[in-house]
């Protein structure tokens, strides 16, 4: 779904029962690569998928704090663009969605398409029961 309205909040909601590890990812932006510097946070940094579930269900908050006004877009590693922000000093966004595996979010300058930061959100799985095909149909009496 593509929006072209002023960004309010975009959220990725982790839609699975979970135990969330509320770590915060915080990275310092490389000043040389984008001509300014700042800090980008994603919270939580990881979540744990519990038994009988196969993905996380949790909002993810992306926040930033730059020293100078900055344009940037946030994408998944596979190239899917989540949102863009322009002339930003500080702010945050909440995104909803399903995370089943460890996912990398990358930050891109919209003008040059250069990546200047990436943050990994780790999806951890409690050991899942191993299933296999059974020899007989269950409860086939005869």
């Amino acid at each position, binding site marked *: *779904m593509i929006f072209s309205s002023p960004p309010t909040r975009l959220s990725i909601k982790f839609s699975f029962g979970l135990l969330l590890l509320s770590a915060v990812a915080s990275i310092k932006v490389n000043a040389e690569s984008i001509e300014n510097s700042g800090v980008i946070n994603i919270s939580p940094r990881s979540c744990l998928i519990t038994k009988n579930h196969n993905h996380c269900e949790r909002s993810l908050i992306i926040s930033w704090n730059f020293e100078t006004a900055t344009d940037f877009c946030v994408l998944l590693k596979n190239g899917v663009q989540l949102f863009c922000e322009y002339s930003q000093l500080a702010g945050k966004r909440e995104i909803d969605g399903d995370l089943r595996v460890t996912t990398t979010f990358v930050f891109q300058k919209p003008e040059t398409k250069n990546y200047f930061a990436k943050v990994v959100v780790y999806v951890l799985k409690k050991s899942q029961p191993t*299933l296999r095909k059974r020899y007989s149909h269950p409860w*086939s009496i005869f």
Partner: protein
Amino acid sequence: MTANEVTPEISDYEVLYDSSVCKLDCIETGKWHLGVAIGLGHITTPIAEEDDTRLPVIPQFSYYGEKFFVDNFTIGYSFVQGKNYSLDFIGDFNRDFIHFHTASSVQKAFVLSGGFGDPESPKIPVHIGDYDLKKRYATYLVGPSFRYQGEGWSLKTSYKKDVTGLNYGTEFNFELGQHFTYGKWSFQHAIGVVWKSQEIVNYYYGIEPEESPFPELAYSAQGAAKVPYYEFNTQYQFNHQWRFLISIKSEKLNKSITESPIVNKDEVNSVFVGFGYDFF
């Protein structure tokens, strides 16, 4: 300030595990599963003067390891396992045993998943008319088996040989099944055929001269028997423990069996209606 936003879809993320691909025919490995079926069970017998078998309680148990498995009294080892197929070496009981009243009700309940006679016990004659039959024991057969599971259908075949030394016979089984679920209901039905070697037919349905009042009334099958069958199973799952069950099976006996003097029917019909309970 403008933004182009995309709400991520599931497909945007890599999917490593999805339990929905493995439903009714899958089982959790590394643990024992124990259950019991309670209800009205009835198996007709083709043997003259033998009573039909009534089974109100039928135990169910299984254990599946990575390759080894026990599914009731079927014991197997899966040499090759693909996403849709499996090549196994299995052992299972021959089920003709349950038609003879030398088997107790408990043995008959287990013979649906096995069943034992005691080879060391004295051979007490069974009187059918003027025949004094020796005990017919359960035999255990082992051999290779191949399974293939398509979308909603399955194929199963096996070739097994008696290893108890009672008759050294062989059985070949071919079965084609179909299954589907509808809400809490699941349905499965299958057609198949069991080819029983002459040795097996003679062991259970043959009459030795010393079992017969007159030597000329002895019976020896002249060939193997092909027994086609149809089975239907349905269940309604109330919760994790309880389910409602209906199981039906009909087998058609061919003349190698029906020409035996102790056989007076050419079919075996089995039905069970009741409830299943999973202890764990």
